[in-house]
């Protein structure tokens, strides 16, 4: 069963992203929105081998360029992803 993990907290303010990565399954994906998109700026390569999506409007609002290994999406694509994956887990 695949899960789309949705994060909106900054990776610099708490350990949600670390906890999420620890339990991330093989078929799972990450969707970064809000301040969570700052995770794309980290120099470490912890995310590069994962399936990572980021909300385009949040990237634009923070002037962050989407790296090649991630995919920038809009809301219709967010809806599609929530269907493509069996469950959506929001890290509230």
């Amino acid at each position, binding site marked *: 069963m695949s899960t789309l993990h949705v994060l909106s907290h900054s990776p610099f303010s708490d350990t949600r992203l670390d906890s999420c990565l620890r339990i991330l399954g093989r078929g799972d994906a990450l969707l970064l*929105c*809000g301040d969570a998109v700052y995770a794309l700026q980290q120099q470490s390569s912890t995310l590069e081998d994962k399936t990572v999506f980021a909300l385009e409007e949040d990237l634009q609002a923070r002037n962050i360029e989407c790296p090649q290994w991630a995919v920038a999406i809009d809301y219709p694509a967010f809806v599609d992803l929530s269907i493509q994956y069996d469950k*959506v887990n929001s890290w*509230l």
Partner: protein
Amino acid sequence: MKFAIALYSAAHAPSSRRALRFAEAALAGGHEIVRLFFYQDGVHSASSNIVTPQDEQDLAQQWSTFVSNNQLDGVVCIAAALRRGVLNNDEAARYQRPAVNLQAPWELSGLGQLHDAIQSADRLICFGGP
């Protein structure tokens, strides 16, 4: 596809706006929203007493319009609402409070409505936090 959407944050939180944009995109994509459930601080998004500065988006108003226009089931958790002072006519009268700030299209109900929505939906999507 049937969606149940739960919102845990107030109207001034970016996640409230994200939830609304997601809900709009879901309907635009031909999907169904079986219920919107406003829980914890999400109950503030249903308050009719919110005054938003003119140069900012009035998310509470946008939510209300969205629910009305699409004739959706907008349920506000009654326990979460009472403890945050979000009252409809009945509750204001019951507890002798001077103001009513929850009106149509919103409805106060229990957590069972969230459980019920999850059962009848294909996906539950939660929005909250920042």
